[in-house]
């Protein structure tokens, strides 16, 4: 009886398409990922059922559990303009290098008196300073620096927005976000909101994370 010959298939299959796809995805994710800069301040944000996403081009004011206020703004060009305004207002001599360093740094909570030292410090030293700082002064008696940051930040980002828009780029109008710790006292959050409102900020985005169902 003749034996039936089963054609022997090679156990190895061609994985090239799969690998191609994998690398395509790797490239995609690598290019789209925006690494969040390291948080200057530890903030546990509250939960909510809101589905609205945080828009781009925001100024974020962080408030930690102790009520310290930190400021951060998107947009490299707008930040450079803002720092020039602030240095002019507080009469601080700054170099181009300072401006360049300011425009790429993360959230900060230094008063203008310590700003130059903070900018010229290394990443490690900045971490220590972030830990020790009492936050941006919001008290109107001791000089309300937050009001100046908000006011000049708003005009810097608006100018940047108008420039980019007239150049035909798609940009979002500047928005304000408040990223407060759930344990922070509402009194302080309200104080920050009041300061911003006085500088002409009409809307706020309270940053929350999705509630786990």
């Amino acid at each position, binding site marked *: 009886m003749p034996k039936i010959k089963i054609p022997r298939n090679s156990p190895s299959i061609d994985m090239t398409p799969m690998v191609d796809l994998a690398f395509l995805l790797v490239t995609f994710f690598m290019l789209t990922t925006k690494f969040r800069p390291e948080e200057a301040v530890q903030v546990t944000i509250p939960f909510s059922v809101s589905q609205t996403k945080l828009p781009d081009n925001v100024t974020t004011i962080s408030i930690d559990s102790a009520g310290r206020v930190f400021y951060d703004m998107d947009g490299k060009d707008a930040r450079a303009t803002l720092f020039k305004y602030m240095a002019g207002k507080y009469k601080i001599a700054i170099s181009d290098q300072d401006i360049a360093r300011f425009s790429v740094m993360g959230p900060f909570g230094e008063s203008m008196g310590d700003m130059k030292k903070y900018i010229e410090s290394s990443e490690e030293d900045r971490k220590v300073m972030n830990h020790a700082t009492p936050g941006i002064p919001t008290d109107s008696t001791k000089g309300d620096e937050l009001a100046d940051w908000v006011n000049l930040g708003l005009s810097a980002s608006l100018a940047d927005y108008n420039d980019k828009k007239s150049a035909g780029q798609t940009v979002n109008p500047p928005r304000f976000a408040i990223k407060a710790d759930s344990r922070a006292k*509402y009194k302080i959050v309200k104080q920050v909101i009041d300061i911003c409102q006085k500088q002409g900020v009409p809307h706020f985005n309270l940053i929350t994370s999705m509630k786990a169902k």
Partner: protein
Amino acid sequence: MADVGGGGEGGGHGRHQKKRAKKLSTRIDMTPMVDLGFLLLTFFMLTTTFSKPKVIELTPPVKDPHIKTEVDTTTLTIIMSANNKVYYYNGLLPANPDSNNLNLTDFSDNGIRKIILAKNSFVLQQLPALDQKHDAHQMADTTYSRLKDQVEGKKQAVFVILKTDSAAKYLNVVSMLDEMDICNVGKYALVDASAAELNMMRDYNNKHKIQ
């Protein structure tokens, strides 16, 4: 063939062995590279997913809200205080405040939510008809949200005044704004508690022996 197990070693018995250059395969083992590729893929996929946080939009009133124009019967005043305590009373602040009108509750599902929902019956009666049409795709999303806003903005709909005292936590305020969303409350204002209300709360706490 005696040496079955031996494989083909030393194959070509007796034949003249020609010395030739070893032919290297053009195929290289790509397994490590692929492994690394998948590792990176997993890493980037996991890190990108949770990048965008969600926000609650808040537009605080520029001046004192026009609370006076609201009808007393549809108004609910909620005061948030320390230790997640929630006080509430029906209507606007009366001319002579009485702590007997004040009630204490919490943030649980059977707490303040039940009270808001009970007060908001007008909107809750109107909404199912809209929801049904929206769910059946007979209504566009924009039309739905416009009509919903219209219903929530009507005179019969509840108006909630959210008040905070100096000890209220930010978490409480966010939870309460969230409740407004959950309970379909379209009209609400966030203001500070008045001195009269703080007195009412103190009276209430003394009477009920609450810390």
